[in-house]
């Protein structure tokens, strides 16, 4: 395809714009012939001002209930399992009360809580230190509150890992494909490459299609099968009518390390009573 001077200038100008602007640059790039092309958000997409999660560990009964969450998440996102803590990559996992809330130690706490595994994932903080320190905006905050990772842009400096007080981030010390079985890959989602940082994204790719995060769905399925209530709730913290707000207004919930001012969006219900 030959290109005349005018077209060339248009494209050159557009490339400059692309660095600065967003969607508007697309039209400039297309020039006259493709003027009509544009991008939209899917009508089915779930929207919120600030996505949040409530986790009620009392609703999880068996080890299987927890494994189901991790499996749902890690299998659809092609999270590798290297089988050693050094290279470990995890988006959602469990740990004890003591490790989850190290600033709330209580030797004599009720046995049920003491030995209960707590579900851990990225807190999608409202004031995220990881975003503050990232030198390339590879990790950034979306309008809906999700702390997102752009794997294309990450230079692997691991400043975000030092900044995250919740240990939510993992680094690809090795090629993740070494630990992924070809036949178990989710071919609709990418893997990561060597040398980038990754973490939970609140399933941004599922929200765009109108689906709730995979872990929430897994907990709903588990509840349905067992005939109980699910242990994970997901919704808009900004909407007083949302499911998460209803629980927050009726139950005692805590967050991890709130004293650090990061304002986490993941809440934990403490205590076992029924929902009011």
């Amino acid at each position, binding site marked *: 395809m030959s290109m005349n001077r005018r077209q060339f200038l248009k494209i050159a100008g557009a490339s400059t714009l692309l660095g600065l602007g967003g969607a508007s640059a697309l039209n400039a790039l297309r020039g006259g012939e493709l003027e009509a092309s544009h991008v939209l958000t899917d009508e089915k997409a779930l929207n919120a001002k600030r996505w949040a999660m409530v986790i009620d560990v009392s609703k999880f009964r068996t080890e299987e209930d927890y494994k189901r969450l991790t499996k749902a998440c890690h299998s659809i996102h092609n999270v590798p399992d290297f089988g050693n803590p050094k*290279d470990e990559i995890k988006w959602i996992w469990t740990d004890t009360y003591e490790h989850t809330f190290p600033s709330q130690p209580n030797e004599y706490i009720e046995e049920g809580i003491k030995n209960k595994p707590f579900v851990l994932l990225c807190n999608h903080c409202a004031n995220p*230190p990881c975003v503050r320190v*990232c*030198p390339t905006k590879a990790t950034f905050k979306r309008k809906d509150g999700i702390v997102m990772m752009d794997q294309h842009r990450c*230079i692997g*400096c691991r400043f975000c890992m030092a*900044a995250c007080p919740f240990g939510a981030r993992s680094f690809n*010390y*090795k090629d993740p494909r070494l630990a992924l079985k070809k036949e178990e890959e989710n071919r609709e989602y990418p893997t990561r490459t060597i040398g980038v940082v990754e973490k939970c994204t609140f399933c941004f790719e599922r929200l765009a299609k109108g689906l709730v995060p995979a872990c929430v769905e897994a907990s709903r399925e588990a509840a349905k099968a067992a005939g109980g209530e699910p242990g994970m709730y997901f919704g808009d913290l900004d909407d007083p009518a949302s499911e998460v707000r209803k629980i927050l207004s009726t139950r005692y919930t805590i967050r991890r390390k709130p004293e650090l001012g990061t304002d986490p969006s993941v809440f934990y219900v403490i205590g076992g009573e029924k929902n009011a």
Partner: protein
Amino acid sequence: MLEKALTGSRRYWTWVFFLLAMVGVGFVNYLYQFKNGLGITGMSRDVSWGLYIGQFTFLVGVAASAVMLVIPYYLHDFKKFGKIVILGEFLAVAAVTMCISFIFVDLGQPMRVLNVILHPTPNSILFWDMIVLNGYLFLNIVIGWMTLSSDRKGIKPPAWIKPLIYLSIPWAFSIHTVTAFLYAGLPGRHFWLSAIMAARFLASAFAGGPALLILLALIVRKLTKFDPGKEPIQAVGKIVTYAMIANVFFLGLEFFTAFYSQIPGHMHPFVYLYAGLEGHGKLVPLMWASSILAVVSLVLLIFPSLRRQEGILAAACVALFVSLWIDKGFGLVVGGFIPNPFEGIMEYWPTTRETLIALGVWALGFLVLTLLYKITVTVREETAGIEIEH
């Protein structure tokens, strides 16, 4: 002037080729890391920075220390530093070269390093660190080169160099302050979350850097006909003494706050480093070695009668340099990650390859230093007895 680095004795060339070989070994190992990822290092999900970033932090201090010669000479008219100020500036050039190399070898995706400039992010301290480090490198190359070539021609350096020299003073403070801010602004890392971090960094820098400079000046005197002079070396020795006292004092302040407040998060990293925590204590011998060497160096430095003997001064400087190297180049970074955010402990120790890469970067820095010092020494030998005021 560059040609002066191309002629030299057999000893000079042996040293240069030895350094080149070290750089080569480091480079081959780096290629292996480039292909296989940072998994070949001892770093982990919990201790995500290690030897590389530690060395970077330590060397920023060495680089900043040039200002300890620039201030007396240019601001206080302390003429005796006239001949060695250039040694400080060229040491800074070599040190910043190593700093930038250490950052580079630590990156998981080094090919994307220009993203820092393509997507400038002023809220990231790393962005500012890139600016101040490169600026400082540029300043010292220009200032060092211009003043030396003027000395060689026996003329006054151009007038425009003066503002750059004055600019280099606050700039030196900025590189180490910004490097301290990399750590001191992170919530949840109690060991680093300390307002005195930048001050402590500067104190250790102004002790460690000049100590290295004294050793280098003594080596230069021994190997060449250029004598940096007894008095300037003693004056630098005084600076080292005061800075080291300040550094140990600041470290003491950290201990007081952690242990008198009894806040577990603040105490844990110190306990881990100096006594071991829950049976994990890989760094304990190193940290104690650092403490003992610090005390030894202080004893040798504080008494003027001891310090005035150059052999003892040299021994004190070696002890001090090693002490600070362990404390800042290793303990400071690793200690910040232990225990992890879940109060768990994952220890760190560099692998052989990681160590060889780090040695390669050091060799690269010493190569730069050797070439620059060779030029300086040759010019000084040629112009012996001529004093040019800058």
